[in-house]
């Protein structure tokens, strides 16, 4: 038995209504314990005086693994050569920044106080790779969101009128087979349409082969996850990513939900108007207003930061459109296995560019205009907007108006003219930061024992020095405990531990087995039972942590 006592820190635990309460936090056998329950058994005491104590942070949308990450590493070989993991007792010879390798990813996240990160684009055909790779990322609990909505089996089910029940059974079958925890849709129907040579697909435009619209795919899958009772709503990368004027598509998409829960991801890339002489303007105010009015909607931002990165997406339709702006001039696309696709385009965001500068401002406008911190999440869509290592800088931008104004003033006048950013006075409080990085992500993912410090929660605890320079404060945690073990001390890694993988497995009508056996044999060319992952394949036989759903197995 081990018990840790953290004394004297200010506890920020919004999920339990605690805002800066000075109290001791106890962790016993890897879990948070009530103060009275530990008694004399404390084996380690950590002095947190002058510090802020929070639960481990959770990233709900970060591309940390899988085939597209490997393609990005391959394409960005200069970055890999330039940025290597510093040698040391816990070095694993990896490298990269926007293309960070598995071990480095875990290290850089945990130093900032993150103890969980979720991969938002698991293509079914690539799920096994994804899980093996995530298993090599230390410190973090992980899980994947399965990409559906362009898979031929599903589109055929919808187009042939097989009915909602059949769709629900298929979604449940796929979740079980791929050991994922939520459903992501990327450009509903659009990736599939590109395989039939369509170049754009609006919300109400029919797929050239299946003759169903993105709206139909979206509403059918929203209903499926609602009826299966998944904690996380549909995680949507909408139509028309990056296209000026896509603010209307985003507003129409919000309206299409008819009040059912929907999470819209990297909304910055979907908040563009066509005003001004360059026909590119901020739609943030309109989008934020719609989010504020519709409590069923949550968003993450996908903030961009200036510098070299690489964009990696399942949305080959959009990435093919973007290929001309690749910097350096190389890119890779793949159509994938009747499932989806991927497109990897290196890109450098430049502060001197009107479009990039405005993208930066649009992201911050969204952060500041969406009122409810429980429905907006801190992301850069790593690495698409910027590497996740820029989070501390982003936190300072949100918490420190003078600093934000200083950065804003550096942008080209043409871009500043189109943004209301310097009129926005809001500064995020520490409590709001604890919500957007901890409490709210745990809540929207249904991780009831994470993102808070109540008794029984996972022993993932972070202590930050309360530094007025919030960028410095959030760059290196003073202490990070993972499942009750000290893994970071004074911003340095002192021990290596591994997290768990989270999944859901709602029940399905077993007649779906025979249908998918036939589909795999005929269309895919290998067996459904080969496709299905087994528990022994997850983290050397540990299996996943299976979360309850309304329709449980």
């Amino acid at each position, binding site marked *: 038995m081990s018990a840790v006592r953290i004394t004297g820190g200010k506890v920020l635990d919004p999920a339990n209504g605690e805002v800066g309460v000075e109290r001791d936090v106890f962790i016993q056998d890897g879990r948070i314990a009530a103060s009275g329950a530990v008694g004399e058994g404390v084996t380690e005491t950590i002095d947190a005086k002058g510090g802020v104590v929070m639960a481990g942070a959770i990233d709900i949308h970060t591309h940390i693994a899988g085939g597209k990450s490997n393609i990005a*590493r391959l394409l960005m070989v200069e970055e890999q050569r330039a940025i290597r993991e510093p040698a040391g007792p816990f070095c694993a010879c990896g490298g990269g920044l926007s293309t960070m390798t598995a071990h480095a990813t875990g290290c850089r996240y945990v130093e900032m106080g993150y103890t969980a990160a979720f991969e938002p684009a698991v293509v079914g055909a*690539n799920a096994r790779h994804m899980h093996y790779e995530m298993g090599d990322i230390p410190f973090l609990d992980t899980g994947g969101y399965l990409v559906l909505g362009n898979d031929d089996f599903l589109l055929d089910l919808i187009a042939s009128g097989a009915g909602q029940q059949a769709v629900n059974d298929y979604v449940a079958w796929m979740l079980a087979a791929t050991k994922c925890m939520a459903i992501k849709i990327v450009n509903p129907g659009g990736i599939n349409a590109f395989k039939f040579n369509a170049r754009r697909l609006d919300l109400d435009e029919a797929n050239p082969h299946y003759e169903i619209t993105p709206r139909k795919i979206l509403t059918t899958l929203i209903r499926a996850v609602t009826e299966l009772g998944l904690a996380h709503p549909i995680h949507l990368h909408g139509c028309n990513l990056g296209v000026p004027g896509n603010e209307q598509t985003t507003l129409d998409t919000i309206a299409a939900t008819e009040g059912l829960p929907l999470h819209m991801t990297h909304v910055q890339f979907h908040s563009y108007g066509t005003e001004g002489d360059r026909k590119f303007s901020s739609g943030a105010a309109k989008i934020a207003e719609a989010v504020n009015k519709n409590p069923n909607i949550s968003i993450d931002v996908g903030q961009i930061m200036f510098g070299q990165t690489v964009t990696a997406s399942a949305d080959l339709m959009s990435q093919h459109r973007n290929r001309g702006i690749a910097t350096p001039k190389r890119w890779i696309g793949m159509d994938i296995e009747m499932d989806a696709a991927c497109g990897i385009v290196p890109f450098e965001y430049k502060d001197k560019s009107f479009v990039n500068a405005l993208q930066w401002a649009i992201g911050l406008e969204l952060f500041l205009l969406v009122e409810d911190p429980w429905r907006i999440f801190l992301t850069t869509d790593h690495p698409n907007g910027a590497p996740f290592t820029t989070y501390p800088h982003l936190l300072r931008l949100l918490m420190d108006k003078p600093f934000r104004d200083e950065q804003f003033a550096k942008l080209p006048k043409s871009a500043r003219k189109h943004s209301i950013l310097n009129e926005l006075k809001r500064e995020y409080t520490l409590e709001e930061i604890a919500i957007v990085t901890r409490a709210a992500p745990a809540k929207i993912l249904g991780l009831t024992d994470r993102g808070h410090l109540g008794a029984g929660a996972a022993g993932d605890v972070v202590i930050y020095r309360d530094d007025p320079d919030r960028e410095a404060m959030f760059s290196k945690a003073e202490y990070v405990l993972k499942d009750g073990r000290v893994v970071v001390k004074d911003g340095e890694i002192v021990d290596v531990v591994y997290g768990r993988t989270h999944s859901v497995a709602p029940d399905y009508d077993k007649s779906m087995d025979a249908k998918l056996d036939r589909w795999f044999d005929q269309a895919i060319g290998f067996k459904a039972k080969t496709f299905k992952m087994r528990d022994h394949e997850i983290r050397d036989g540990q299996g996943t942590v299976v979360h309850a759903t309304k329709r449980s197995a």
Partner: protein
Amino acid sequence: MTDVSSGGVTHHDVVCPFCGLGCDDVSLTVRGNAVEAGEGACGRAAALFRRSADPAPSARVMGREVALDEALAAAAELVSAARSPVYGGLGTDVDGVRALIKLASKTGGSVDHYASTGLFRNLSTSQRKGWIATTLAEVRNHCDLLVVIGPDPSEAFHRLYNRITPPTGRFIKGKRKVVFLGGAPSDEARAQLEGVEIQTIAVPEGELLDALSRLQGLLSDAPAVPGGPDLAALAEGLKGAHYGVLAWSAGMLGGDGDLIVERASIIVDILNVDTRAACLPLAGRDNLIGANQAFLWNIGFPLRTAFRGGQADHDQLLNSTEEALKSGDLLIWTSAFRPEQPPAFEGQLVAFAHPDTIFEREPEVFVPVGQPGLDHRGLAFRTDTVVSIPLGHYRDAGLPSIAMVAKGLRERLS
């Protein structure tokens, strides 16, 4: 699914790990140590799965039979004393590769897979310029015109056309067509392509790159590149196809293979402006692709990476096994899928290898290892780099995995 009879146990739907197509309909009959592949196995897979009833050989040090422990202790001494270790072979599952990465990062040394020549011809284009590629099931259902560039890849990927170009595909209207440009289908390939229109376009020896340049010219309205054969009809066919695919096995292309790959990828780029097309680069014997993938996510570089002083660096010329052996003093050879002979080398040899491996000379240390997909479970990647296949465990012959042996060796190093 398994059947038990007095003659042994027959396992059905076994996943085959060898060529990179990942067929999963092989049956294996296991009687004690003996293994015989039945239905589903191509000729090459049947030969590679076959095992006699003989007990597995012992580990050896300088030809003397020893226990595994002693062999690992001897290997640890050699590795510790080596100035410049070379890790070659790398025919192992993903866990084996992970364990070898950890070992090599501790001991230093270069790492390469024995069948990586084709992979690097492909990477010279994909890494520098990029391409639009596709996977087996996309070809199977979308591809109405497949152009096979150079020698018929089914020499290495035996059941290729069964898998990717059956006569019917979900979205194919009319008859599917396969054009062999600068190569010809084997009799077996022709049998697999029954019901598919086949065309063969002969290209004089050494002129495949010129032929592709001519095809590119025809597609981009550039000035005509003189010479034969006439490819105007092929160009029109690709422009008119709904989903044209250019496939090749880079390992079978000649010395200008990297340029041929680049040219093919440019043709696909041009086609995608108005219609759809994709590349299908084939390479992937003995989990070559999985080894490369595990390198990318753990180290950030492809294979042919060397570890020195706790840092990794990639150089596809200097770190090839062939080059590395010129300055290396110890070869650590790992080959679990087949009895692949290590390259000739005058330095010392530690082999964690298939029990049937025939060595030109006795290695200093030999540890016979089990095959992923027969002796232990494992993960391998398909040639298309996206799909990875779970390999099963079907017999207990007392052979350790490469992952176990590499870990055991690492633990013995101070």
